[in-house]
Structure formats: structure tokens, C-alpha cells
């Protein structure tokens, strides 16, 4: 069981209804964690369109969910 802080942006924040939350999870990796969050918040954004960052740096979906980390699932960006 890992306790993580989740950050939500743009349409994911609107769907979650919060900008951040702290959550206990048994997800094996970040991919599984996103699947869990899709259930929890009804996210429609498919995993293929998502990037992930851990503690302020881009990470891989295969990475473990580290206890105490800050995780952001990043929907397609539209700056510029």
C-alpha cells in the first residue's frame, strides 16, 4: 500500500472536481494507478493519450508507484 499525492490539470481536474488529492493505492505501476483513477473519477481520456510525471519529472507508465511521491497524469498539452 502506497500513499501518493495526485495532481490534476485541465479536463482531468474538471472531471475529478479537485486539483489534488492524497490517496492510498495498491496499484502495481502507474499504468494500473491511472486505471484505478479512471474508475474513481470517470475519466474518459484513454491511457494512450496520457503522459505521467512523478515528483516534477516525466516518468514511465511502467514505473512503480512509490510511497510518498507526487504524481501527475498529463493530458495532451495545448500551449503555444
Amino acid at each position, binding site marked *: 500500500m502506497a500513499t501518493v499525492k495526485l*495532481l490534476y*490539470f*485541465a*479536463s482531468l481536474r*474538471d472531471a475529478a472536481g479537485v486539483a489534488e488529492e492524497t490517496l492510498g493505492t495498491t496499484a502495481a505501476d502507474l499504468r494500473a494507478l491511472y486505471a484505478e483513477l479512471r474508475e474513481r473519477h470517470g475519466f474518459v*481520456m484513454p491511457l494512450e*493519450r496520457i503522459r505521467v*510525471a512523478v515528483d*516534477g*519529472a*516525466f516518468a514511465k507508465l511502467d514505473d512503480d508507484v512509490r510511497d510518498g511521491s507526487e504524481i*501527475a497524469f*498529463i*493530458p*495532451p*498539452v*495545448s*500551449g*503555444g
Partner: protein
Amino acid sequence: MRRFWLSDATIDATPLRARLLDARAGAFASFEGWVRNHNEGQSVDGLRYEAYVALAEAEGERIIEEALRRFGAIDAVCTHRIGDLAIGDMAVWVGVSAAHRGMAFDTCRWILDEVKSRVPIWKHERYVDGRSDWLHPREVDPTASGE
């Protein structure tokens, strides 16, 4: 001195350009993204940019360092707005000084393309008909997409 940052107030290009003045530079290319009154066939009323600030600024710095190494330009600066913007407001500014014009143009364009595709900033458009939406582009096409 940092070369990329997010700005929550109107961007003033004058001091940014001044930072890039250099006696070795023969060329200066700059780009401004402006909020235009339409996008993909819809009339736009205004928009809001939101960012994952810490990651956006780190990624922006990386892009500029990479660009200078890749093209050999002298220096470059980029700043991107966050918060509420009206039609005509400047959303992004990129400036590059270089020995030659080819380098200046290539670097400027590359930085802009990378910022658009890699930096965690999101645009929320408000339309004239009252609707509003987050833009999550399917795929970044650097030759065709708008600013």
C-alpha cells in the same frame, strides 16, 4: 539566468529582446503567438492557460538548452502566458539571436514547436456562443496547427 518562464501578466517583448542583443549576432528572429478570434471554425471570445508550473518551467529550460546546442545560436528566451487572455493578447514569445539568419529562424521555430508539444500548458477556450472547452489536441502537427 533562466531562459524560459511562465508569466501571469501581459508579456512585454522589449526587455526580452534587449537581453538578446549581442555584438556577435547578425540575426534576431522572434515569434509571438496571439489570441485570435477564431479556432477550428469557432468564434473565440477569450481563453485561459493553465500549467503544471514546476514541470513546465523545467521542460522549457531543457528545450532552450537543447535548441542552442542543436542549432548553434547565440542565445534564446521564451515566455508563455498563464491565466486569462483576451483576443489580441500575446500568449507566447520566443526570441533568438544568432550569427546567421538560418540559425535564428530554425532555432526560433524549433523552440516553439517543442514548447507546443512537450510543455505541460493547457488552453481553455471560451466561445462566443457561451460554450467553453479544454484543448487536448489529438496529434501535434507543427506545420498546420494554430497558435
